[in-house]
């Protein structure tokens, strides 16, 4: 299909938007839109935009895209030490000898790890639990990488563990549980909760402010 035809199709479709009129679409296109719509954060409008955009790309580009998808799915697994996403048996952070400084930061999943990594402040290594303790969802410590964490602490000469978990009931439960479990082996701390930088005190919500008051420290 040439790009003029695709533009026409897009315009005619967008003018009819409202419900989900996937009729009027040739089958392969409808299938592609449907696949995009299954992704998190993508609604019908964005799904169409992406699908129609791809139709305008050179075929080579599409091949690269498809290859990247498949390669990521088949090659990316978990680091056998810290359980961060990794294509190798051990991830880059765990392989880096400079980061072997006796400090482990415990996070719930790889997204949290990436957020902490962006700060460039933390020089130690990580441990990804794979979730938080929540009996309601049937998640107990045995389903998380807790045993492996204890093993690492005894094997790797760890002096400090930093717990960086969300301050929800489940996050706090996991922090308290791990705190008691690990105290005999090393020092355990928890990240502070409080005001985001660059925000004004007067605009902070009450819950954040009261948490920040609780976590106050001497000047």
């Amino acid at each position, binding site marked *: 299909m040439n790009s003029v035809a695709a533009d026409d199709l897009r315009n005619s479709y967008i003018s009819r938007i409202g419900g989900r009129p996937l009729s009027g679409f040739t089958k392969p296109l409808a299938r592609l839109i449907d696949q995009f719509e299954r992704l998190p954060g993508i609604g019908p409008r964005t799904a169409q935009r992406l699908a129609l955009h791809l139709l305008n790309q050179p075929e080579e580009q599409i091949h690269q895209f498809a290859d990247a998808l498949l390669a990521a799915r088949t090659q990316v697994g978990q680091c056998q030490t810290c359980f961060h996403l990794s294509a190798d048996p051990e991830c880059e952070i765990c392989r880096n000898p400079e980061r072997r400084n006796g400090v482990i930061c415990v996070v719930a999943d790889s997204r949290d790890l990436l957020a902490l990594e962006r700060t460039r402040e933390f020089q130690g290594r990580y441990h990804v639990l794979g979730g938080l303790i929540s009996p*309601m969802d049937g998640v107990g410590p045995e389903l998380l990488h807790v045993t492996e964490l204890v093993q690492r602490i005894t094997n790797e000469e760890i002096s400090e563990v930093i717990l960086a978990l969300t301050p929800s009931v489940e996050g706090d439960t996991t922090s308290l549980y791990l705190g*008691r479990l690990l105290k005999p082996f090393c020092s355990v701390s928890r990240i502070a909760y409080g005001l985001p930088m660059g925000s004004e005190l007067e605009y902070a919500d009450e819950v954040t402010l009261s948490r920040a008051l609780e976590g106050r420290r001497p000047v």
Partner: protein
Amino acid sequence: MIGPNGIGKSNLLEAVELLGSLRSHRCSNDRDLIQWDTPQALIRAEVGDGDRLELELRRQGGRQARRNGKLLDRQLDLIGPLRCIGFSALDLDLVRGEPALRRQWLDRVVLQLEPVYADLMARLNRLLRQRSQLWRQRQISSAERHALLDAFDVQMALVSTRIHRRRQRALHRLEPIAQSWQTHLSGGTEALELHYKPGSRLDGEDAEEPWRLAIEEQLREQREEEERLGSCRVGPHRDEIALLLGGSPARRFGSAGQQRSLVLGLKLAELELVTQLCGEPPMLLLDDVLAELDPTRQQLLLEAVGESHQCLVSATHLEGFGGGWQQQAQILGARELRPDLQIG
């Protein structure tokens, strides 16, 4: 608002309540609030100083709150411009019914005093649910279970302490107001007392730390019983607010008339405290309740609220309302309420 049953009077009051407080006293599920076979419902109101409030309920997906057309990140921010307090026939259960109803009454007041309270209550409820699920899990070892219970105890002790302290403080402020209404409404024959009976033993001096430690201890001690009975025996979810008239429980010994006056007194105390705190009188929603009061009590209610508060009143008949009410009111009949029905 005068009209036959089923015309939608209570619906309208419920919509106002929902927009003002984000909750309905009749129903906790949004799906039941949306008209059958339609995907969504929209409540829109324009209040005093020109604020436009909107709440959209959807059968699928959550709610959306807008203020002056702007989508709000936190729905809680919708609360404020439209404060309202409802009176309904269900309120009679406040004296006669389960302790949970009295806790809800007190919680509404605390929530107005301190917005953080909503977070405390949400945490407590979540902790209780997680805790009871933990007992049902069969595959974990006893040592593991108790290690997790320790983690719940620490959090519950802190949250419980804060809830107990806030409820107690609010009750202290409500008591004198309720007492003066009681004297007013009953002609001063029987003294009213509001007793806070916390669901935890609050040992030691009245401060956060000793109470927290005491509650943590009690939570640990009750575990065997908790396992046997399937529910946690200590905490604010077991609070009771005892209402005493002349020293005896109004729940059991009060006459129907006494109970009715007492309910009215408690609600008026809530109203007065909220007015004091917000500086602005909240709107009153009187759902089918005025006609149930005798003329003397109606008159007292009118004197108490009529001058300063806007009231939305629903009833099936205009008869039974004292002259004072009718003179000051704008009366809407079935035709105005439901123009689509074309009632003769």
